[in-house]
């Protein structure tokens, strides 16, 4: 049978990806330019017996998502810059309490209300450091409608596998543009479900590290009964201020994502003509599409340009970026903000190559010409 195809907006593709992944709870609050995600979920979730709730504010939306996740749901919320700012405290809650959930952020400019209908990529650092305290972060950044579908599925998988909030960031351009989508058949993409505890209810501890860095999470309303808090806690879930326990727990929660094994699993990059590249364009989201156009133009002019596109923004692809920094004469970081990921690149490549940047925050996309001009600067 031919696959189902449709012309979908990025936001619609995101909702369809969530449904494919088995999302059965959405708690949200309307905000441009992410609202279509909520609209599709409001229509589709009840059809499959799932729950949709429009909460009184962004904070409530994030709270309902964590509550539903603890009751066993695969839960999603979608927002944009200002809403993501409001959600930050509870994203931190999901980090420390280790609650799987997915937060979609359709990025616009800022700060504050900024330009609600214009595109931006100014939340990439917010996605990493927005909530207070030390914590790991996973953030994925698709650049096409088809990839929004598959990366949303992957976000749910990573949330369940690593027991933490996972953010999907895409900019307004990809969120609102329409492209043909091929719907994967059931089973075609991997769907990971939450690991269940293997011990008896009497033995169960929600943060029992004898099961590894990611202890299994039971669900409220099952035969397991447990306590969850946003305080630093011991393996039984109850608050502790014992220095050694607090330290070990905080370190474990970062290590579970940043250890080599997890990085290899979580990181995902696309490279285009990087093999012999003398200049690397580092770009993500819709900007990477301009960069690819620029690479083709430059190659036709005889410039050995290549594209490095991180699909996983966090954890940052440190190893590969370091290698490319040694290989290339120059690297150009193009992003719709006034310089955010460029500092990560700078931290990693150090002085091994010349670094250039293209930045834009006027609500217009970065066009290929701007990138090409900057490439010529660093060569």
């Amino acid at each position, binding site marked *: 049978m031919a696959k189902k195809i*449709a*012309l979908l907006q990025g936001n619609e593709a995101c909702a369809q990806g969530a449904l494919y992944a088995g999302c059965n709870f959405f708690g949200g609050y309307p905000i441009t330019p992410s609202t279509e995600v909520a609209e599709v979920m409001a229509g589709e979730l009840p059809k499959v017996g799932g729950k949709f709730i429009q909460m009184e504010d962004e904070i409530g939306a994030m709270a309902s998502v964590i509550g539903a996740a603890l009751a066993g749901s695969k839960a999603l919320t979608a927002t944009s810059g200002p809403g993501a700012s409001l959600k930050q405290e509870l994203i931190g809650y999901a980090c420390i309490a280790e609650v799987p959930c997915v937060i979609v952020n359709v990025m616009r400019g800022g700060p504050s209300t900024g330009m609600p209908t214009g595109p931006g990529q100014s939340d990439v650092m917010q996605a990493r450091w927005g909530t207070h305290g030390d914590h790991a972060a996973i953030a994925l950044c698709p650049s096409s409608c088809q990839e929004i579908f598959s990366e949303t599925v992957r976000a749910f998988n990573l949330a369940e596998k690593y027991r933490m909030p996972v953010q999907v960031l895409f900019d307004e351009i990809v969120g609102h543009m*329409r492209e043909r989508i091929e719907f994967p058949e059931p089973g075609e993409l991997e769907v990971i479900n939450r690991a269940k505890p293997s011990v008896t209810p009497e033995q169960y501890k929600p943060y029992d590290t004898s099961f590894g860095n990611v202890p299994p999470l039971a669900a409220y309303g099952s035969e397991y009964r447990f306590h969850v808090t946003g305080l630093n806690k011991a393996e039984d879930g109850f608050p502790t201020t014992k220095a050694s326990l607090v330290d070990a727990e905080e370190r474990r929660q970062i290590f579970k994502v940043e250890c080599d094994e997890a990085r290899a699993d979580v990181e995902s990059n696309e490279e285009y003509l990087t093999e012999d590249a003398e200049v690397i364009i580092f770009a993500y989201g819709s900007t990477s599409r301009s960069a690819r156009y620029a690479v083709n133009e430059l190659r036709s002019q005889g410039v050995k340009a290549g594209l490095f596109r991180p699909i996983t923004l966090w954890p940052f692809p440190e190893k590969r970026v370091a290698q490319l920094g040694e290989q290339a004469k120059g690297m150009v970081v193009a992003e719709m903000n006034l310089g955010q990921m460029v500092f990560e690149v700078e931290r990693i490549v150090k002085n091994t190559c010349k670094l250039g940047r293209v930045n834009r925050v006027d609500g217009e996309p970065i066009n290929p010409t701007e990138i090409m001009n900057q490439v010529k600067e660093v060569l």
Partner: protein
Amino acid sequence: MAQRYEIRFSGAGGQGLITAGIILAEAASIIEGRHAVQSQSYGPEARGGASKSEVIIGDGPIDYPKATIVDACLAMTQEAADKYANGIKSGGLLLVDSDFVKNPPQGDYKIYDIPIMRTAKVEVGREIVANVIALGAMIAMTDIVKRESGEQAVLAKVPEAFKDLNKKAYNLGFEKAKEILGK
């Protein structure tokens, strides 16, 4: 590099130009199996203001999703013409609604005019189908998709009760454009 063809629809918010772009993208990518990307930009107004919808059509994957050099542009209002009828390539075309765009921006491209809103009101009896008339005209002028593909995409988009109305509007727009080109 894959060839790309860029079309821009512009007008007032609420005139259905975004829908026209979506239908064209569906005709190209779903019906004809080519590559298409549709995008738009709009102000805070749900009605009024100026809005634009762009469709990039190509035979290979489309990277940069916005217009670079516009092959064909539609402007339904003077405000839209002033704001969005730019970046049209040398030898390209601009189609305007003759009743609303009195001063089309001049350039090294052909300018055509059709009283699109009036046609919708007088000849079809419903202003709401002006976007479908415009779509028919743009397809006739550009040949970017087959006439039947456009019609099929229009009919797939509208409820049963409005199929005849939209079919009439689409073909009226197509014929009027062919007439002008033939002159």
